[in-house]
């Protein structure tokens, strides 16, 4: 087990790092040298072996450490996980989806044995073994959504669908890019997206909502989002802003390569069968600038994206202040050569 998973922290001494293998499979989110919002959704179908798209739910070398970090966040602030009463069925749908996927895709780590509604779940990396009755929450130590998302990387929100809208009414949110489940819970699709600049005027949310209302079971979709994070802090929450916000003011030309991270979210959307709800897993991947620039194409491209991004977006993503520092650092790796199309390294 110790060979598969890193011993590392996402707080305090920040010992998080990506192995050479993790850098190689990092989901670099820019298919071209500039960035603007779009409804950039594509079918969430299995991708290349070893890539983050290989399986429905990617389990990587950071798994155990991320789950320990989540448990710490929840111990300090239980409101990071909430379920409105009518969303429990969607929680069972999610538990089934994740358990079946992981047991199928990672049989060396996870097992699921079913005898009717009597289920037996084994999670070897976290040393969990649980016998329970499917659809009977009294047989689990937590509600179904909380139980399974304490064992799954990424944040999760559950959206009920009614009245031609989606309503965020349950979630597990501890690795978020500065948004709060406790604030957003109960909101409609456009309400919780209200703070996003520019995209509303581009009708992005009208089109995205229309698309998602018709999302079919068995045909999940995915998209990327990204931001910038100082230090490998997973929990960049509004609740804790006083703790991490000021770190942006301490960046220097000497530390930026080591402390500045590109934060990428692999967001997927799945229709859930029993509840007709939609689950939105938001999986966070972090990479230090000094790790990222080991891939020449990514270094060139990130320099150009940061250089040309509109100030509104840099402000919303919280890095306008450090943009000049980032550009000075990244410029050293941009020789002006053209980059090839697509996400992959050359």
């Amino acid at each position, binding site marked *: 087990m110790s060979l598969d998973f890193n011993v590392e922290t996402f707080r305090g001494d920040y010992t998080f790092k990506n192995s050479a293998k993790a850098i190689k499979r990092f989901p670099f989110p820019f298919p071209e040298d500039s960035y603007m919002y779009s409804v950039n959704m594509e079918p969430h179908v299995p991708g290349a072996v070893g890539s983050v798209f290989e399986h429905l739910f990617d389990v990587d070398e950071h798994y155990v450490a991320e789950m320990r970090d989540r448990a710490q966040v929840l111990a300090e602030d239980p409101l990071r996980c909430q379920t409105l009463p009518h969303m429990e069925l969607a929680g069972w749908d999610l538990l089934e989806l994740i358990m079946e996927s992981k047991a199928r895709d990672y049989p060396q780590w996870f097992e699921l044995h079913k005898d009717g509604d009597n289920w037996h779940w084994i999670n070897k990396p976290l040393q969990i073994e649980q016998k329970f009755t499917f659809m009977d929450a009294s047989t689990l130590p937590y509600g179904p959504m909380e139980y399974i998302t304490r064992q799954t990387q990424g944040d999760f929100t559950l959206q009920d669908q*009614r009245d031609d809208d989606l309503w965020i009414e349950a979630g597990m949110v501890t690795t978020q890019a500065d948004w709060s489940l406790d604030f957003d819970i109960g909101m409609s699709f456009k309400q919780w997206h209200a703070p996003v600049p520019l995209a509303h005027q581009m009708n992005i949310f009208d089109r995205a909502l229309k698309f998602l209302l018709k999302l079919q079971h068995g045909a999940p979709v995915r998209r990327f989002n990204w931001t910038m994070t100082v230090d490998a802090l997973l929990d960049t929450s509004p609740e804790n802003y006083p703790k991490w916000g000021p770190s942006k003011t301490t960046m220097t030309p000497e530390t930026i390569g080591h402390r500045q991270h590109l934060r990428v979210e692999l967001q997927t959307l799945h229709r859930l*069968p029993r509840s*007709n709800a939609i689950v939105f897993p938001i999986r966070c991947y972090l990479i230090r600038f000094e790790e990222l620039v080991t891939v020449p194409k990514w270094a060139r491209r990130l320099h150009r994206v940061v250089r040309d991004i509109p100030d509104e977006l840099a402000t919303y993503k919280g890095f306008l202040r450090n943009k000049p520092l980032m550009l000075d650092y990244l410029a050293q790796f941009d020789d002006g050569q053209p980059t090839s199309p697509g996400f992959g390294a050359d």
Partner: protein
Amino acid sequence: MSVGAPKIPVVVAEVVEVNALIKRFRFQRRDGAAMPVFSGGSHVVVEMDDHGTRRMNPYSLMSHPADTLGYEISVRRDEVGRGGSLYMHTHVRPGMEMVLSQPVNLFPLDARAKKHLMIAGGIGITPFLAQMAQVEAMGGRFELHYSVRSPALGAYVEHLQEQYGSRVHVYYDELKQQIDLKTLLKSQPLGTHIYVCGPKGMIAWVKATAAAMGWPALAVHSEEFLAPPVGLAFEVQLAASGKSFTVQPNQSLLEAIEAAGVEAPYLCRGGACGQCETDVLRCDGHIEHNDHWLTDAQKASHTKIMPCVSRFRGAALILDR
């Protein structure tokens, strides 16, 4: 941005004559694997090869949503329709191979409801069969009011009464029995949601009565699938794919587009879901809008069409497809 889920290859496991007008069909997967579970109110699109004509009709799933061994639908025989239901009644037999879509729910229960009040007319009972099974399994509260023509044509009445007892109320037109809707709606607890599925007139009656009594519109849910109407043949031109063809009298525009080998999105094929909405580039004539999706202003502008149910009369129709 495809929303296409994989289709389900099935074999017809059972055909049961429920009464003089209705047959029930059970489908199982050809590969023996489990069917996906679904939410009560979902439908599937059944693909038929009617002697060379491809028909794709939506039917509500009526089997227990947790039954992954098979799906069941009920089909009412429609003598004057385009032939989908007649094909199901006269040609579909146990052992036949067919193809179903993944379930889609356009008539979901509101999970927040304190009580589900279900009002069914005739074949409109089918989505409620699945919904009641699901609510019952979760310990929820519901009541069914089911209106049918006669005891002989009351599909599943005995089963329902046996299963759910006093929560099922049946009304026979022939015996001049009618739902006392005003009294019924007046006596519901706070937090009740109303669901109605049946003939057009029944849906309009329930909605209007509830609205007049002050029920919030969002607490009243209905489902009405339209069968694509027959009509006159017409010509259509597809700009993006560069094809022109004739839509036959008993063929829908969507079916004609598919028969021409052009992929077009769809979910309900009954004018309700909006998925097949298509831009009209040129319209020299009149579009017969038969859908529940477009707004009156959109319909009047003749810039959009729902090819699953709508037709055209005139000189030229050019679509962005």
